[in-house]
């Protein structure tokens, strides 16, 4: 059985037919707030249940609970504040109780009732969510550019946002039905923002050994400079799946959601989101959602102990490496050989090789994947 949606009910706030037409017409008369892509994507994710049980951007009570307790005001686990920052100028004339149109690229796509307008302390946010105020952290740096006010309230989508990967854009209601149609009772979710190397493949297949199906679910959307471009990640996974995965055991889909690089908190957020897609299990990697040296390699494993009521089972799979003696990918627990035989997969080293136009050795990256990645003139953002 697919997992129960987080909070008990899959949120669906997408207007269709006559109601969508009416909202679109009303939106033309409303105050318009233009959103960047990552916030517009958050709005669509709310409406389509990706962030169930949220029905809108957080109001202050929920926001403070998430910051302090990593839970919503009703005690539901929630670790990343989903907020809508605006400047006072953007909000000019809008008060609590008003309805506003949310717009992306000059096209209104949702209506939001402004339940609350409140200030926020970005330094407190940085410390509690990212564990640092260091502006070298990409999430902290991004905070600086955000508006000084937050608006909270429920929203309703009346027009889907254009999607660059519509072929792979599945929503929770779709993956849930898909898993049921496939007869899967246990599904592991795999989150990624990278092209796949052999270590990723090992982890995915280790998980797949114990569950019925695997959802490979890369994020597309905002990432820090130097990360792989979305189209490179998608093409690389197509090559891996075509050559090395049984098609009846995996589902490949993309999720448009900004990376926050919030380490442990974001690991829990990623798990909650995949639970809403129907996953019963979630793979938590080494330094999950980390960046630089801001988090310990296994901090993300520790935080899950605080959530006995998460409703999705974390799979802590150890870092994999290639062992020349074993002749394959193994991990610390199952390989008895010394470090001299071990070839560790370093994402930084792989990126350097790719930047130089060199194909990584096959024990680090499948040749079919390397060929695809190198076929892009510039694979990085």
């Amino acid at each position: 059985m697919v997992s129960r949606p987080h909070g008990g009910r899959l949120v669906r706030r997408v207007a269709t037919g006559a109601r969508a037409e009416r909202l679109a017409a009303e939106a033309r008369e409303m105050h318009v707030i233009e959103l960047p892509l990552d916030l517009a994507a958050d709005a669509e994710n709310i409406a389509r249940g990706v962030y169930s049980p949220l029905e809108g951007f957080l109001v202050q009570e929920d926001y403070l609970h998430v910051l302090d307790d990593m839970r919503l005001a009703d005690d539901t686990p929630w670790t990343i504040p989903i907020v809508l920052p605006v400047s006072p100028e953007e909000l000019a004339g809008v008060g609590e109780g008003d309805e506003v149109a949310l717009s992306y690229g000059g096209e209104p796509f949702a209506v939001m009732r402004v339940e609350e307008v409140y200030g926020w302390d970005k330094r407190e946010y940085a410390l509690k969510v990212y564990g640092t105020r260091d502006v070298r952290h990409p999430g902290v740096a991004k905070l600086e550019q955000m508006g000084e006010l937050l608006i909270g309230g429920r929203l309703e989508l009346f027009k889907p946002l254009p999607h660059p990967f519509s072929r792979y854009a599945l929503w929770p209601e779709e993956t849930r039905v898909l898993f049921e149609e496939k007869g899967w009772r246990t599904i592991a979710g795999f989150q990624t923002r990278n092209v796949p190397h052999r270590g990723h493949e090992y982890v995915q297949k280790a998980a797949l050994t114990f569950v019925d199906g695997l959802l490979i679910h890369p994020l597309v959307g905002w990432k820090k400079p130097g990360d792989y471009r979305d189209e490179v990640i998608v093409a690389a996974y197509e090559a891996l799946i075509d050559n090395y995965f049984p098609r009846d055991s995996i589902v490949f889909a993309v999720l448009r959601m900004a990376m926050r690089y919030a380490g442990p908190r974001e690991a829990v957020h990623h798990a909650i989101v995949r639970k809403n897609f129907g996953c019963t299990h979630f793979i938590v990697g080494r330094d999950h959602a980390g960046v630089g040296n801001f988090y310990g390699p296994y901090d993300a494993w520790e935080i899950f102990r605080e959530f006995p009521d998460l409703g999705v089972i974390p799979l802590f799979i150890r870092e994999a490496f290639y062992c020349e003696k074993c002749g394959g990918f193994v991990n610390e627990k199952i390989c008895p050989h010394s470090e001299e035989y071990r070839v560790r997969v370093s994402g930084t080293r792989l990126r350097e090789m790719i930047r130089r136009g060199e194909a990584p050795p096959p024990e680090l990256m499948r040749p079919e994947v390397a060929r695809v990645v190198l076929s892009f003139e510039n694979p990085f953002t």
Partner: protein
Amino acid sequence: MSGSKGRYTTVSIPVTLYERIKRLIEGTGFTSVSSFVTYVLREVVAQYEAEKGGEVFGEEERRAIIERLRKLGYL
């Protein structure tokens, strides 16, 4: 500045149980009987909630979703 004022309430448990839990959590990661009880209750409540079942889609809605999944090549 946010705080925790007003976020906790008191629940009564037998003193004998309190003492038993106090002994049990010695040397564990739990810093108080309250934190242990909160942890256990959340686990139990989540289990009860999970038994309420998952999402149910209407037949027509389900057919439309399956049709889209077929068009995309997922089924």
